[in-house]
């Protein structure tokens, strides 16, 4: 490996670390609710404080329990979303790419609704 290669690696690592740092900062704020979007459209917003089960059309299904969100059913072939770690902190996401579903945790300050049920 030449010197330029090492400089490239250094730049990549630095940018990554900066992004991780920024991520930690954003996650520090309180988590209030989970916003469900499908193809960019908001389908619903649910408070993390109440345990519930939500189905998204026929393609996905997730559970809120003890303030933690987990996807437990999806029709996608890869099942990445179902195997994803449960999320509970601000800005954390579970995404189902084939079904274009995104579950994202928002802080209480950003939540526009108390609870919206489809």
């Amino acid at each position, binding site marked *: *490996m030449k010197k330029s*290669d090492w400089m490239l*690696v250094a730049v990549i690592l630095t940018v*990554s670390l900066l992004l991780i740092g920024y991520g930690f900062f954003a996650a520090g704020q309180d988590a209030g609710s989970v916003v469900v979007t499908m193809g960019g459209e908001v389908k619903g917003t649910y408070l993390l404080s109440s345990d519930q089960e939500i189905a998204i059309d026929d393609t996905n299904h997730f559970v809120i329990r003890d303030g933690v969100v987990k996807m437990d059913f999806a029709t996608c072939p890869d099942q990445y979303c179902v195997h994803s770690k449960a999320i509970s902190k601000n800005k954390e996401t579970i995404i189902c790419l084939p079904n274009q579903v995104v579950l994202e945790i928002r802080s209480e300050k950003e939540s526009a609704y108390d609870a919206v049920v489809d």
Partner: protein
Amino acid sequence: MRKKAVAYFGMFLALALILSYVESLVPISLGIPGVKLGLANLITVIVLYRIGAREAFLLSLLRVTIAGFLFGNLFAILYSMAGACASLAVMVLLKRIGTFSIIGVSIAGGVFHNIGQLVVAMLVLQSVSLVYYFAVLMIAGLVTGFLIGVLSLETMKRLRFQF
């Protein structure tokens, strides 16, 4: 392309498809979609260095499309294509600049493959918060790019053909 290169090109395409298939058999679980070994990039790098940029681009295009029809779905082709184009564009650029070794070029290729895929995912899902995946995907791309780079280097040492 000269006749000899055309014959080899077909073989390289077949190899790239096989590597794509083998790669799909190995599940990598980081909880984040989009982390791949990038084995097929080995062929892309070799073609880039031994034949040329245009041929490498054609190879990538064909490989992504055919592999998408064989092993994936329509959306997968979109993401793969974005990643492959971004990756190859950066690799051609760095190779032309000249001060990077194959390993450095491959590292950049790996990183930008993931960046390309993530940007397209963010556009399709219209979600800015996916930006937090950047850090992990960049590091993953760096590691896989490095491994493919080393593999490319060693493979080319043992391949005796030139066009």
